[in-house]
């Protein structure tokens, strides 16, 4: 009679560690396939593609994009969007440059000021959209315009040559890989852990899934939303530093239109625009796909129209492949 009394045999199965690991690997399978396919293709088209140089230079080109994509992943998970990252990148770089060149601040201080600029911009976006409960799309679109205006003001609409004062961030380190790349990878790992293993991460996912339920469970969604946007701003600021370190200049037009590229990377990585679902590591795969594509097309010297057509096709195909794989896995999983 007791057996019947407990309808839930509760199968004591917390999925075993090893199967969880295999599951994890599975998630990256679709994107890895796309990536490997692309590399093979470019390798066959250019004799110099499959060289260490290529990979080192791709590695050094991606930190800015990767860092912004980490922030954007969090933003999309809370069902928001931040279109202003490109402008924030430019403004942060501009402020850093101005701090070094005009206000004659020490480089670390100037860099901190640049990061703070990003943080403030992100906080404003978050706070305005939370305070009046506005869609972040429109608030960040407003910020995209206004912050770009700020970047023009600070640079006087002129590219500021900074020189190698801050180039340390982009300088080759171990085996030609830059500090910025290592930093980006560390950030990806940390952000993934934060997302999956911390209270904050749990709250972020929860808010993206059902904000009202979170509120009634005693978690105030507003500060969390603001923090997510603030972090994204901060990361965009970091991207600004990375980019100006690499280019040794602060360009008031830096990052124009990059928001769509960042969002593309995140979405290719399987994060939903509807919120509640996403993974930073997958985002990183998305970043790699975009970066390899861009570098490969430049290397094989594709014409502008074909670059565009191929880029468009690859974005869609990558998402299709990943989606199909995901669905297959879901079906098996249940």
């Amino acid at each position, binding site marked *: *009679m007791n057996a*019947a*009394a*407990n*309808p*839930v045999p*509760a*199968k*004591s*199965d*917390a*999925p075993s560690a090893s199967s969880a690991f295999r599951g994890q690997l599975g998630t990256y399978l679709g994107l890895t396939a796309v990536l490997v396919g692309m590399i093979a293709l470019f390798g066959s088209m250019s004799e110099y593609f499959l060289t260490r140089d290529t990979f080192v230079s791709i590695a050094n080109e991606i930190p800015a994009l990767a860092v912004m994509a980490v922030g954007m992943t969090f933003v999309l998970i809370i069902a928001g969007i931040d279109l202003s990252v490109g402008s924030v990148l430019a403004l942060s770089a501009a402020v850093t440059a101005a701090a070094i060149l005009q206000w004659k601040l020490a480089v670390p201080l100037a860099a901190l000021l640049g990061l703070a600029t990003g943080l403030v911009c992100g906080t404003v976006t978050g706070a305005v959209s939370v305070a009046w409960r506005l869609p972040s799309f429109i608030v960040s679109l407003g910020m995209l315009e206004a912050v770009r205006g700020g970047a023009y003001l600070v640079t006087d609409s002129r590219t500021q040559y900074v020189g190698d004062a801050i180039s340390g961030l982009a300088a080759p380190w171990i085996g030609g890989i830059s500090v910025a790349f290592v930093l980006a990878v560390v950030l990806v790992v940390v952000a993934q852990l934060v997302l999956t*293993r*911390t*209270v*904050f991460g*749990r*709250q972020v*996912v*929860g808010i993206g*899934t*059902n904000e*009202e*339920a*979170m*509120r*009634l*469970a*005693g*978690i*105030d969604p507003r500060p969390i939303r603001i923090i997510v946007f603030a972090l994204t701003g901060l990361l965009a600021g970091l991207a600004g530093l990375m980019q100006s370190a690499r280019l040794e200049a602060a360009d008031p037009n830096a990052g124009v239109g990059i928001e769509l590229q960042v969002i593309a990377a995140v979405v290719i990585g399987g994060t939903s625009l509807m919120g*509640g*679902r996403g993974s930073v590591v997958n985002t990183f795969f998305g970043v790699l796909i975009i970066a390899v594509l861009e570098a490969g097309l430049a290397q094989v010297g594709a014409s502008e129209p074909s670059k565009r057509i191929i880029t468009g096709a690859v974005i869609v195909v990558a998402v299709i492949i990943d989606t199909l794989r995901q669905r297959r896995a879901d079906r098996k999983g*249940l």
Partner: protein
Amino acid sequence: MGGVAVSPATPVLTLSTIGKDYAAPVLDDVSLVLNAGEVLALTGENGAGKSTLSKIVCGLVPPTRGQMLLGGQAFRPTSRRDAERFGVRMVMQELGLVSTLSVAENLLLDRLPNRAGWIDRAELHAQAARQLAKIGMHGIDPATKVSRLGIGQQQMVEIARNLQDDTRVLVLDEPTAMLTPRETTHLFEQIDLLKARGVAIVYVSHRLEELQRIADRVAVLRDGRLVDVRAMAGLREEELVQRMVGREVLQDEGRARRVAGPVLLTARGIGRAQAVRDVNLELRAGEVMGLAGLVGSGRTELVRLLFGADRADRGEITLHANGQVTQQVRKGWRSPMQAIRAGIGLVTEDRKSQGLLLPQSIRVNTTLSDLGAISRGGWLQRAKERGIAQRLSTLLRVRSRNIEQPVSTLSGGNQQKVVFARWLHRECKVLLLDEPTRGVDVGARADLYAELDRMTDAGKALLMVSSDLRELMAMCDRIGVMSAGRLVAVFERGQWSEQSLLAAAFSDAAGRGDPHLTSTTLSTPATAVTP
């Protein structure tokens, strides 16, 4: 009248050896015959497979095994639409209305009257009004947006949508879970009419007293298997419960009043606009206070104010401990966070939109209310979390594969248990429960009651809103009755009767001379509605 068997049984729908597997089998070897003009009650514990079986019949879910015959022909519906072509219709457990469209548009969603694509509004509203009239919803303007209706009215619209003339088989999956006695009465009248027309009806419910009133036969599912099919006439409730759960369930109707401890919470003149008007109440340690009332009487609004889910615009809330005032807030709590920190919890009425993170696991949903307890320095302690979720899920007998199962794939009643589990995880001094047993089966209900008893024993104060008067009378030490936003009466155990409670529920409306609300059958569906 009970279940007077309808004479010569003509089979309309025959199920043979139906089975359905998700990861594990949830239905197995179900064979049933459904006759014209009869009501077959389908009952069983949460997660027994009632909704799944209903969905199979109506083409929403394909069976893994087995066949169906409709009027002697093989019946393999590929979609709900397909089943409807054969006159097989279903009112689903979960609402499926489009909130931004009007009542009329929802009623005729797939056949909007039109000329070359342009909607004929006059015709649309006329047809809709006719359909609404059938279930007694005369007063509703068909042009009203569904989002402006209460949840009960939405359910009635959903039912009205499926009352088509060509219906041969009608499946109703817990249609009364959100209805008040009066609406239930109308539904039953309609069911009687359909029966008379020879429609075969499958009626899923956990309200056993309803089954007595409406069903001819009853089929009991347990763990996905059909354990019994028999005539309703003469079947005693205890027997039925025994069949469903396979064990004795304690029914403590005549319990004694619990010993009430010191006051933990007082509300003075708390109110919000017209919805809640200056309510005074006290919650004491160790007792359960009930809240009865009609739909829209403001019960939900009141508990939301006590929890800070909405902001009160007048009055104050005071917390006490050991006879001392520990906290006093004017105009209520600023936010639920403040209330929770003060030791208050709320099991919400609408679990889907306000309670659960549907795509997330049982584990995540259970521990949500107190992440501090399962983390150190902001990092989650996974083993600890799993342990807690596992324990609570076992305690409440949540029927699931494991605690990693997404709650979206749980049956309705089991979802409700997960919401409840959350407030067992977070220790609170005052727990507010809004319709906590909606859709929960008898066995699990008993478990839940036992859990509430344990909480009162531990000196907590409980406030329970329910539309089920029998439940309130069985569980509560005091019952407050709300009417039109006021707390019009509070009865002590022993002082109440069904009549007095209902009279109070209607009092305010009557006092204001609202003709709609005076002269109706004042009773629970089980007893007084019988013609």
